């Protein structure tokens, strides 16, 4: 027993020693924990506090309302209209399928929409409102509101969407907006954080794209506290953004509507410019398309239809299409010769139907020739040989320089997409681009606006306005931004002899109003509204020697793509020019029959600010014109019907 006690004592003291060792070890570890806690909470507190704030606070952008676009009379061309949407929040809905099934009994939902919505809801965060249906009618919205108790988590909401009420009439001018793409981001190098918002709408083409910065406005932002799942808990601070500027265009929507209607059915374009101010009153291109289709995303089939169309509806031919100006260029060749003093207006040239230059025959369009022609006659009857002769004397450099004076070969500053520069060839240009020397035949071709010479309808309209006024008229599309009037395009006097210009105008007057003028059929018969102009028919093919022998094939017998372009430029009233107009009908045949009537109708419409009286037309046309006016008055632009009209 004694030994046992001793043993027991020894054991107890060993246990006590070991217990103290273990206890001491525990104390050391607790000390380490305390030290670590001190390190994290005291020494590094600031750093962790910052990290915690970064966790907690997020910035959220408040997108500004996009600026609206108006025509010169205040008619709305691009607007933001409320877009009623039906959204669903998963965590409030619980049984998503059942609620959607109930919803589809109340409003019209196709199976595809339902399927897509259900998939999206399951993917999204439980508190994220998923859009089930967009562009629903007000009636549907009220139905959903009335049935709210049966539809937990379903809320009607209102967003803004871009609408172009005049649709296809302004497709080429305004363009359209669409959700920002990676491609856009790469291209524009714009640090605006708004562009990082998924599906943020930016201008893709036209005024919408060119005036993007002003239309967009600047973003506001709010500081919100979020939880770990990203749910907004409360708003800490808010700074409102600035809405985009409203833009007023120089276009007159009524005239624009007429112009588009008049061009309908052709592959054509036309420009109406105010000679006094340079205001572009109408710019049209046909065929056209409904830009509203692009806003919410165009279907593949619709898009394919637009891109596969050989008449290129997506192209804004009036500013981006370039064509050989043909005989409408003759005023420039004549002006160059007059300015150089090489010919006087009464000097004549003999036209035998062709001119032989460097062993090559250059034909006049009239095989039998015009006989002896002076300036006025040459323009009136559009004699080619007269201009061949002038060109040989004055040279290509002078002609090209004169073309530039009149706004050809110059990229005009118009807020539309892909505004073309055209081409006024020079010797240096040919050498640089083609690596070949200029030959005299090139000069001969250029003199009548063929060969390398290229101009857009816009440029031809500017040229005509400059001819009409003698001032350096520049085109203007944006009239005012948020009520601030933009610089006028009236311009100063052109650096040419105004007397020479007067002679040109007289000759152009003769083209339309003299018996035997190429555009005489398309004259205006009211005295103080008379029009001056010039026809043009530009070849898109080379007439081969074989063809010459067997006789030139008539235009109407050729396939469409190889027919001549029909052109016409004019200004009116001839004695006090108000509007200049340029019309090009692609592969339309002759300028006098295909383009001049269109130009005359548009000019009259502009002059009378509406349908002109029938007395303005030659008496034998009046019956036809009356029915045409009736037909055109009924034409309305293509525009996706709006929600308000649906119900």
């Amino acid at each position, binding site marked *: 027993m004694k030994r046992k006690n001793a043993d027991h004592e020894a054991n107890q003291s*060993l246990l006590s020693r070991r*217990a103290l060792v273990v206890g001491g070890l525990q*104390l050391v570890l*607790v000390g380490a924990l305390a030290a670590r806690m001190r390190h994290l*909470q005291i020494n590094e507190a600031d750093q962790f506090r910052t*990290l*915690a704030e970064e*966790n907690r606070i997020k910035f959220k952008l408040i997108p500004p309302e996009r600026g609206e676009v108006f025509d010169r009379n205040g008619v709305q061309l691009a607007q933001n209209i409320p877009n009623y949407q039906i959204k669903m929040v998963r965590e409030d809905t619980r049984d998503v399928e059942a609620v959607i099934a109930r919803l589809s009994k109340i409003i019209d939902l196709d199976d595809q929409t339902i399927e897509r919505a259900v998939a999206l809801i399951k993917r999204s965060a439980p508190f994220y409102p998923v859009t089930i249906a967009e562009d629903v009618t007000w009636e549907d919205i009220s139905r959903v509101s009335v049935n709210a108790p049966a539809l937990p988590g379903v809320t009607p909401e209102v967003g803004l969407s871009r609408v172009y009420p005049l649709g296809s009439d302004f497709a080429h001018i305004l363009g359209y907006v669409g959700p920002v793409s990676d491609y856009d981001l790469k291209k524009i190098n714009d640090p605006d954080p708004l562009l990082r918002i998924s599906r943020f709408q930016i201008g893709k083409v036209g005024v919408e794209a060119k005036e993007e910065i002003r239309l967009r406005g600047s973003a506001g932002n709010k500081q919100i506290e979020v939880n770990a*799942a990203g749910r907004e808990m409360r708003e800490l601070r808010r700074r409102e953004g600035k809405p985009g500027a409203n833009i007023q265009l120089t276009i007159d929507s009524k005239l624009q509507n007429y112009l588009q209607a008049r061009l309908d059915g052709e592959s054509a374009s036309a420009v109406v410019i105010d000679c006094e101010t340079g205001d572009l009153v109408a710019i049209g291109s046909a065929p056209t398309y409904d830009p509203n289709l692009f806003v919410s995303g165009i279907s593949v089939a619709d898009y394919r239809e637009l891109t596969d169309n050989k008449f290129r509806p997506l192209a804004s031919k009036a500013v981006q299409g370039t064509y050989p100006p043909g005989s409408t260029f003759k005023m420039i060749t004549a002006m160059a010769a007059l300015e150089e003093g090489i010919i006087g207006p009464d000097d004549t040239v003999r036209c035998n139907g062709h001119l032989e230059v460097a062993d090559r025959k250059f034909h006049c369009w009239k095989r039998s020739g015009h006989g002896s022609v002076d300036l006025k006659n040459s323009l009136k009857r559009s004699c080619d040989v007269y201009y061949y002769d002038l060109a040989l004397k004055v040279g290509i450099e002078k002609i090209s320089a004169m073309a530039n004076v009149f706004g050809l070969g110059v990229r005009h500053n118009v807020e539309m997409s892909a505004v073309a520069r055209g081409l006024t060839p020079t010797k240096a240009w040919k050498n640089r681009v083609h690596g070949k020397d200029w030959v005299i035949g090139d000069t001969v071709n250029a003199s009548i606006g063929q060969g390398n010479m290229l101009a857009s309808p816009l440029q031809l309209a500017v040229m005509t306005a400059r001819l009409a006024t003698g001032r350096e008229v520049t085109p203007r599309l944006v009239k005012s931004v948020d009520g601030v009037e933009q610089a006028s395009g009236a311009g100063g006097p052109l650096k040419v002899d105004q007397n020479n210009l007067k002679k040109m105008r007289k000759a152009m007057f003769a083209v339309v109003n003299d018996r035997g003028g190429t555009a005489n059929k398309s004259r205006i018969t009211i005295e103080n509204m008379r029009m001056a102009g010039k026809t043009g028919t530009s070849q898109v093919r080379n007439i081969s020697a074989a063809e010459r022998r067997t006789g030139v094939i008539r235009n109407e017998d050729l396939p469409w793509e190889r027919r001549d372009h029909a052109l016409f430029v004019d200004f009116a009233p001839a004695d006090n020019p108000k509007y200049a107009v340029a019309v090009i009908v692609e592969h339309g045949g002759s300028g006098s029959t295909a383009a001049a009537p269109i130009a005359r109708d548009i000019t009259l419409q502009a002059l009378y600010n509406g349908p002109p009286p029938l007395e303005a037309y030659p008496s034998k046309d009046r019956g036809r014109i009356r029915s045409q006016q009736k037909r055109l008055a009924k034409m309305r632009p293509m525009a996706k019907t709006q929600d308000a009209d649906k119900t």
Partner: protein
Amino acid sequence: MSYLEYTVKSTPTGLRKILFLSWPLTLLLSSVACVGFLMLYSVAGGSFTPWAEPQMKRFAVGLILMIAIGVTPIWFWRNLSGFCYGVTVILLVAVDLFGEEGKGAQRWIDLGFMRLQPSELMKITLVMFLAAYYDWLPPEKKSRPLWVLLPIAIILLPTALVIQQPDLGTSLLLVMAGGGIMFLAGVHWAYFAAVIASGVGLIVAVFQSRETSWQLLNNYQYHRIDTFIDPSADPLGAGYHITQSKIALGSGGWTGRGFMQGPQSRLNFLPEKHTDFIFTTLAEEFGFVGGISLLAIYLLIIFFCIASALVNRDRFSSLLILGIALNFFLFFSVNMAMVMGLIPVVGVPLPLVSYGGSAMLVLMLAFGLVQSAHVHRPR
């Protein structure tokens, strides 16, 4: 020494025993539990549901359980320790076979009224059984190889079963607690030196075996180790927990953000904020002062236990109290070290504070044994 040698007469009897319970210890346990209620109320956004109220009920049950066990003679528990151990091992086998899946591991048996986690219970019954073993074993035999191998087998059997679940954290805790008892019982230190040396060897082997055919750990376990070594490498994935936990802790500063004002926990950046990571909420809202206070209370509990064990002349009682204290220490220190980013994330709750029924009841049961040993100590 057997229970016959007890000087039973001098020990309190009947309901008087309640007066002889260690009331300071009870008070300390209650204050820790109250910290728990407070934090559970806070992480629920100022609400007793869903956590604080059930936790209070459980603690009340736990207190009654503790007192009931505390007034039961310690020799009763010693005699029962082998049976308890056996039952727990059977439960562990059962959980491997029919247990409920949770977070990729089978840990629970659904008893209907509560979900029992046998691995929690094992921590206590293992200590009981080892204490009883060394009470029974003549002291001179304690360092003989055979008598050392036996307790090692006693430890490794449940450990192996827990690893099966798989629950690496708890199995390591079992080994550490069991080893602790062996050390306290006086097993020669050379054994421990050998074990530590081979442990280091094992760690090397674990890393060497990675991505070979004899890979020793599961991929998720390796992943946890990687995450521990560099949490910032995967801040939104596996490292998310520890990164957010450190941010919450660190942003608490000296005095914290204020009760119910911790953005990290209030905005759900903290994972498992009501269970394993509850200490971070405490440290975020009450700062260094709050964290160190809780640590101090824990330390006091350990101190009371060690003091009680040292004055207790009953070998089983001493070993049992020290073993339970060691377990308790491992509980809170591993949890704290984990949330502070000192050790990898292992699923160990903060004792008496984290929400959870099994751990709470098992701990109160264990402290009931401590109370029993304290009340029935030889006088």
